[in-house]
């Protein structure tokens, strides 16, 4: 715990406002301009007691972070309202059956998705892989789960320290755990052939129940998430759709009442490749 970083800088400005306690706090909390911070450092160099105080305050900040930061990594409690529509929904009871139509509804949920069937078809053609996937046509709006997938990607993929709840080193435990919590067999596909290693998975609250998020990382540090949800009503058609939420591109489709969404910063062609591979591996039977 040294004060090494406090190197008084030579400042030959005119009379400045005297250093106050507020300056010391703001110095600790990095809320001062560089000029003012330099003055505070000059001041501290000749005031050992204040120096000690500042050091202790910094330490307080650090230990409080140490105490509370682990909360960030805890799985969110179930039933947390994650959208405006959700407010109409009796969260505490979590009564099943009330949840119909949550996904179908609401412009609030739909993103402006940009369907790009041509690019996707092209990607297919280039792949020359014969999967029975057809591209959706019609409107380009993302459905709810694709939006949530994009949001979840944004929330969790920047986490450097602990982006997942259960790491890939415990893949079997991850599979067992997710299968139990999701109520159906859930296994992360292997994307190593495409250069993405499984980092792990986490469970998130969805509208109707838990949702699984698998996180993959490429050698260059790019993150990719696969979001799997059971909460897709009705639609049985399998179609690939593409949309984006700011910098996050999403490929998503529905298969046997499961919704799948792959989110990444990568471009469409890349995502398409990944989507096909995921589709191939997850396809039942």
């Amino acid at each position, binding site marked *: 715990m040294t004060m090494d970083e406090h190197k008084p800088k030579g400042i030959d400005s005119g009379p400045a406002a005297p250093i106050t306690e507020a300056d010391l*706090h703001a110095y600790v909390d990095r809320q001062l301009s560089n000029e003012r911070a330099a003055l505070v450092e000059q001041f501290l160099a000749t005031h050992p007691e204040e120096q000690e105080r500042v050091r*202790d305050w910094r330490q307080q900040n650090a230990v*409080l972070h140490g*105490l509370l930061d682990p909360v960030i990594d805890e799985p969110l409690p179930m039933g947390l*309202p*994650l*959208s405006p529509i959700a*407010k109409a929904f009796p969260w505490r009871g979590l009564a099943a059956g009330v949840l119909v139509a949550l996904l179908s509804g609401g412009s609030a949920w739909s993103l402006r998705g940009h369907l790009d069937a041509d690019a996707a078809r092209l990607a297919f053609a280039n792949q020359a892989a014969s999967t029975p996937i057809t591209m959706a046509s019609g409107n380009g709006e993302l459905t709810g789960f694709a939006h949530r997938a994009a*949001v979840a990607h944004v929330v969790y993929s920047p986490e450097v320290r602990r982006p997942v709840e259960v790491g890939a080193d415990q893949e079997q435990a991850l599979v067992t755990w997710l299968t139990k919590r999701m109520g159906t067999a859930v296994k992360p596909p292997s994307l190593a052939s495409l250069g993405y290693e499984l980092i792990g998975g986490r469970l998130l609250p969805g509208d109707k129940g838990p949702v699984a998020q698998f996180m993959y990382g490429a050698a260059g540090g790019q993150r990719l998430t696969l979001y799997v949800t059971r909460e897709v009503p009705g639609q049985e058609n399998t179609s690939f759709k593409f949309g984006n939420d700011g910098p996050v591109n999403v490929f998503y489709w529905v298969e046997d009442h499961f919704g799948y969404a792959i989110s990444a910063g990568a471009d469409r062609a890349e995502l398409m490749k990944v989507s096909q591979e995921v589709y191939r591996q997850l396809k039942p039977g």
Partner: protein
Amino acid sequence: MRAQDEAEIVACIPSLRRYARGLVSDRDRADDLLQDTLERAWSRFSMWQKRGEVRAWMFGIMHNHFIDRLRAQRSRPEDSAGDDVLELPQRAQQADALEMRDLDRLLQRLPPEHREVLLLVAVEELSYQEVASALGVPIGTVMSRLSRARTRLREEMQGRAAPASRIQRVK
């Protein structure tokens, strides 16, 4: 814009949860606080105009709920046995779990208003101005609460504090 605000609110959730845990320590109570905050936020979302201040807005909502709960608790004093170490949930599983529990106890013994300011500044890293607007107090009040919180915590961490019975309770 709307979708982006939504995403920003959702992105606040992990830090709101961390803040709630610092405020009330008990995991379930903290999550209830988070739940109430989110419900309120979404119900007011459509009327909300101050774009770009999502964070301060969300922390402000949580502040209101926190204060409401404190008031309710104070009117039922049997529930407010806040200093009991045994009631604290286990949080850290590391070797320093005990140390963390002590720190948590010290934190919980700060007057709530001081705890709020300290957490918002030290952990959530809001600017003093953001803290002032979240709590609805002048910035001078933020600074004086911060100062008192840090002074008190420093004394206690240095073991120079008076025994608990002699610590002046700030209402």
